[in-house]
């Protein structure tokens, strides 16, 4: 899906847990997520902490979307 949307001309950020798979399938902008069963949250944290996790992921993703890249890039911070 990531590749097809990009083929149509829209840049995509792939938020995913297992970064090597994302690299193998050819995503260009990759944001590492939390864990496979809960990519955007962490049940061991409080609701407020989880909200912060989600906010950080979204803000990092938006920044990645606006970043010019020349190769597959993993945005770690």
């Amino acid at each position, binding site marked *: 899906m990531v590749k097809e949307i990009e083929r149509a001309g829209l840049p995509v950020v792939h938020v995913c*847990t*297992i*970064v*090597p*798979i994302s690299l*193998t*399938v050819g995503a260009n902008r990759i944001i*590492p997520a*939390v*864990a*496979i*069963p809960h990519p955007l949250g962490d049940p061991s944290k409080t609701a407020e902490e989880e909200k912060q996790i989600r906010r950080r992921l979204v803000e990092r993703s938006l920044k990645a979307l606006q970043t010019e890249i020349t190769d597959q890039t993993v945005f770690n911070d």
Partner: protein
Amino acid sequence: MPISLKGGKERTMKLELHRVKISKLAWGDATSAKDGVLTVNKEELLSVLAGDERLTKVDVDFAQPGESVRILPVKDVVEPRFKLEGAGGVFPGMLSDVETVGEGKTLVLSGAAVVTTGKIVRFQEGIIDMSGPGAEYTPYSATCNVVVILENAKGIDKHEYETACRMAGLKAAAYLAEKCAGAKVDAVETYESLSLKDMPAPPTLPKVAYLYMLQSQGLLHDTYLYGVDVKKILPTYLNPTEVMDGAIVSGNCVSACDKNNTYVHQNNPVIANMFKRHGVDFNFIGCIVTNENVTLLDKRRSSSYAVKLARTLGVDGLLISEEGFGNPDADLIMNCWKAERAGIKTTLLTDEYAGQDGASQSLADSCVEGDACVTAGNANEVIVLPPMDKVIGEPEEANVIAGGWQGSLAADGTITVELQAILGSTSELGYTKLGAYTI
């Protein structure tokens, strides 16, 4: 126990498997084995399984090779074994104490199996056909199956139900074998694991270890080592004979085709064959068990740690088996390239999800170092299973099982599914009836 400084036998772990061959099941007054027949006292077996408040109904039935019988949804399969001599008991940390196993004498009811069935995660249980085309794809069509049917108490969590089913399977298997302790033994197999110091195999042969990947993703995708939830371990060394006494127990509710049932762990063909070739083609150094966890950090940590153990053991080659598919492919690939880059040759055992037409990418991940790979087949291949005279369990589960879809079950009982739905059909330990050789 004192540590011998002299070397030799004190350090050897020797296990004898005393095989009592079973080719038929019968109900009777006393649970026993004689002349290939396993007689089961149904009431006594049910009394062994009684008393678990998590279960409202427990029943037992038989399914024997060649019968027009279908079992679904199957959770686990366990081989009846009982420790005749030696430390500990079967399924340590689970059913027995945590004492180290893998030495002494273990009774095996070869040809018999305990099959547990219940609707736990529903889409992640499997199908066993005892005859017809589906029987070719599951090794459990060739075993005489004591089927334990387990219904959960209302309101209990799925993980409690899974635990209850897992324990019932282990209890039934241990009970059946224990009752046959005096039976005439048909064959004795001896496995001897020597310490690295005492290994007599020619030093010119390469040293090869087995990297044994275990499903550990949580949410009922779990495996236990001496009762320890494997997602919580760092990779560790395991003596191959320990596995034969049930040191590894499956708690898995994952796609049926490539989950390693407890039975497959007990009978791991990779281990048996590496023993056979020890001292001939290579020196079998033993097993490194590792997990398949759900965070990238865990995957990176475990693969690095497993490869470090392999380097410390001084191995030249690693045989790596995967369990499951999808994100565990990333663990498999990380284990592969980290070992290869450390100068250790690897061979990978896996299966494929290449789509019903076989045209899609087979694994979710890949690396250039992975140039020796053995596949157990394409789990997406579609098969038509004709109706059976008798179904043990719930036939309509075919519509929700992984590999099935709404409409998989036809009105006449025919089931059309991917091989994914058949228990053990693409076993990544190679415990299958079908195979192919390159000529």
